[in-house]
């Protein structure tokens, strides 16, 4: 069974079996990922790319196999390995934004974005005098596409979240990408919450940049990727200087590598890349689409049960949305709710989920969020609802 491959699922928390429902924050790791990282440090640890000795060769092969795996799985011409989604978006702001955007240019964002897809653009806007336009979120928890059409006028870049980490809503990305390109804008997709649930053919998808993180798909923390088309790759200038990214260095100046290494200065995350490769290979051992269908059914059922318990549920649970249930009880404080759940072994998230503009739009300061992933079971969902029923009966 898939769940049995996760050693942490044996854990007990406060005397109760762990029910881990904070997967939108980070996912747990199967044994193969833990083993791959241990093996690397036990047997092959060395720096990559330069040395000719055997260990360096193994480390290089391990690191580059991650890139190759990502290129193959997501059908992307260029894959830059980063520390995660946040660094990937910051890389676009620095390496593409500073080379291609000037005062008065327009970046279109949405109110649904994670802070990591807002703050880098605010910093760039402040530095370069770039205009930021935010597409509002409707009362149905979707993007206002009429407002999007309006905002697109004169845009140079559109940055949009694939799937909201708060609402679970998957955005109409195909429409957004097509319209943005028609308007002459580049498109960046923050796919941190999207890619773990559905594989993407990046070339067919048509976006110019796509960012995501390993740790939200059973890989290690500290590594992620920026997928880039060749056209856009050629428009990017390196921003972090150092080892590994250069071709030659003289006192007079330096020339840079022509491949992705140009954007990966310094010793990279070798063990993490090897761990991510193991996670990606592991994900090929089951049908992700079928798993997603199972999880969205669970999330949808949980959402209905919570409404029956008098909770306000924020979000949508259609077949392409994520298995995320954000909710609030009218009288029980969300932090109190999370502490009461933790006392019985349930791990959920509370707070603003790094999406304060979205919560401001919804008129709330935070939610309780339960997010499901491939090792979660229907029985766990049922025990979660049972526990919430007890909490509501006792504390409301």
């Amino acid at each position, binding site marked *: 069974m898939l769940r049995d491959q996760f050693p942490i699922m044996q854990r007990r928390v406060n005397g109760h079996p762990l029910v881990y429902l904070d997967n939108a924050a980070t996912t747990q790791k199967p044994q193969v990922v833990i083993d791959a990282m241990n093996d690397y440090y036990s047997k092959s640890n060395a720096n990559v790319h330069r040395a000719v000795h055997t260990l360096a060769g193994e480390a290089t092969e391990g690191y580059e196999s991650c890139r190759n795996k990502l290129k193959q799985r997501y059908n992307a011409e260029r894959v830059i390995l980063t520390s995660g989604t946040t660094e990937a978006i910051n890389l676009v702001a620095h390496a593409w934004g500073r080379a291609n955007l000037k005062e008065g240019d327009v970046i279109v964002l949405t109110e649904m974005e994670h802070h990591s897809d807002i703050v880098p653009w605010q910093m760039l806007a402040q530095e370069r005098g770039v205009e930021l336009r935010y597409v509002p979120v409707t009362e149905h928890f979707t993007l206002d596409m009429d407002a999007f059409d309006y905002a697109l006028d004169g845009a140079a870049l559109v940055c949009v979240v694939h799937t909201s980490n708060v609402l679970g809503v998957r955005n109409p990305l195909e429409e957004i990408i097509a319209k943005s390109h028609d308007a002459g804008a580049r498109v960046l997709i923050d796919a941190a919450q999207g890619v773990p649930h559905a594989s993407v053919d990046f070339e067919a998808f048509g976006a110019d940049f796509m960012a995501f993180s390993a740790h939200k798909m059973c890989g290690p923390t500290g590594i992620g990727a920026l997928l880039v088309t060749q056209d856009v790759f050629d428009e990017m200038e390196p921003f972090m200087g150092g080892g590994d990214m250069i071709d030659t260095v003289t006192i007079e100046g330096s020339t840079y590598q022509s491949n992705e290494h140009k954007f990966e200065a310094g010793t990279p995350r070798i063990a993490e890349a090897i761990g991510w490769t193991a996670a990606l290979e592991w994900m090929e051992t089951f049908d992700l689409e079928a798993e997603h269908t199972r999880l969205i059914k669970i999330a949808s059922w949980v959402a209905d049960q919570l409404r029956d318990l008098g909770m306000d549920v924020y979000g949508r649970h259609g077949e392409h949305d994520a298995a995320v249930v954000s909710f609030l009880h009218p009288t029980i404080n969300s*932090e109190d709710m999370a*502490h009461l759940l933790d006392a019985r072994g349930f791990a959920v998230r509370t707070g603003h989920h790094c999406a304060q503009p979205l919560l401001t739009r919804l008129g709330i300061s935070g939610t309780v969020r339960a997010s499901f992933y491939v090792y979660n079971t229907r029985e766990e969902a049922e025990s979660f609802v049972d526990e919430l029923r007890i909490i509501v009966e006792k504390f409301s």
Partner: protein
Amino acid sequence: MTYPEALQELIEEFQSVEDKRERLEMLFELADEVVELPQDQWSEETRVKGCQSEAHVRISINEGRIQFLSSADARMVQGLMGILTIALDGLTPAQAVLIPPSFAEEMGLLNTLTPSRSNGFRNMYDKVMAELRL
């Protein structure tokens, strides 16, 4: 570590309960112990920063003795305020600043008490102690 007698009794009471949920329930009951800081007196000066929920505290000194006024929208935070109320009320500032923040951990209420953890309690404790030292 020596705590004021009322606080020491509370610590022992919490320690005698094994189940974390029961300890939380005891804490929720202590929320009623606060001397409430009315909402119309909330301000940036009374706000406990870094708290996920609204939490406000004010110290007033009457004839050299502390009166601790507080209010929070999370029952758990208000429960911790209730404990501080029991611990601080009636002490002199010089006595109160000797109380270390470790009691919440000893009571089995918080897993960690690092300054970076934004559970609000540490921020609240630090704010109260800073005001008492003024």
